[in-house]
């Protein structure tokens, strides 16, 4: 403890450390991803409406699975499964995955149909930051289902990729 200013209490040290860490993280994000603001809520809504029109998604009848936390957003496993018999009269037409916390709000669209047999897809996505991912399923009867899952991303995809260069 020699040389340490005696007036600094442990709690002050912790809060200063925390604050510096948060400032550092925010600064890094701003420095490395300056040109690409995250998608605005309006852009997210527009991306959704372009794909399902004015139909209102009903939660349930499907499951979006992804980890609760990811150390990096570079490659995050994601599975969407829709409860459907996949018969000619009752099947899934399309599955959409939205990433509202990325610069571009839509990640992918999957076109299924009766011949898919099972309405489930697995893939890996890039996530720029902590966010709530949204999946929509367009059903053959015209209805739209939804499910959402939140994930904490410790290091966003853009930051990590630049560090790898």
């Amino acid at each position: 403890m020699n040389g340490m200013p005696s007036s600094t209490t442990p709690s002050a040290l912790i809060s200063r450390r925390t604050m510096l860490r948060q400032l550092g993280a925010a600064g890094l994000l701003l420095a490395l991803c300056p040109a690409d603001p995250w998608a605005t809520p309006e852009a997210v809504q527009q991306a959704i409406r372009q794909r399902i029109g004015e139909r209102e998604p009903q939660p349930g009848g499907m499951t979006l699975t992804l980890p609760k936390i990811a150390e990096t957003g570079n490659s995050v496993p994601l599975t969407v499964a829709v409860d459907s018999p996949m018969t000619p009269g009752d099947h899934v037409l399309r599955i959409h995955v939205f990433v509202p916390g990325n610069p571009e709000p839509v990640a992918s669209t999957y076109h299924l149909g009766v011949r898919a047999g099972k309405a489930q897809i697995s893939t890996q996505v890039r996530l720029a930051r902590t966010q709530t991912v949204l999946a929509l399923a367009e059903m053959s009867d015209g209805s739209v289902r939804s499910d959402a899952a939140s994930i904490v991303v410790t290091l966003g995809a853009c930051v990590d990729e630049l560090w790898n260069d």
Partner: protein
Amino acid sequence: MTQPRIRVPSQARQGEVIEIKTLISHPMETGHRRDTQGQLIPRHIIHTFTCTYNGEEVFRADWHPAVAANPYLAFYTVATESGRLHFEWLDDDGTVFTAEAELTVM
């Protein structure tokens, strides 16, 4: 040249739902990153994946930059008849990567 990897069962019963796994090496460059000089690195991704079964499309995916590098995809199809499954990945630069698998339906 990128050689895609696919996993398809070689045999299935008629009507059986089979799982198909695919993987292709590709940077999936988002178009949002900058190089060390601060210049935007142009977007370069695979934007479409299709699977046809004896010539008929049974599954298709539209991809955007949020799909991770080296895109992995697992999906399903019904084994209807013996034949050929054909896979295509369409690149922004016009390249078409393909793979094929034979399936025997009993």
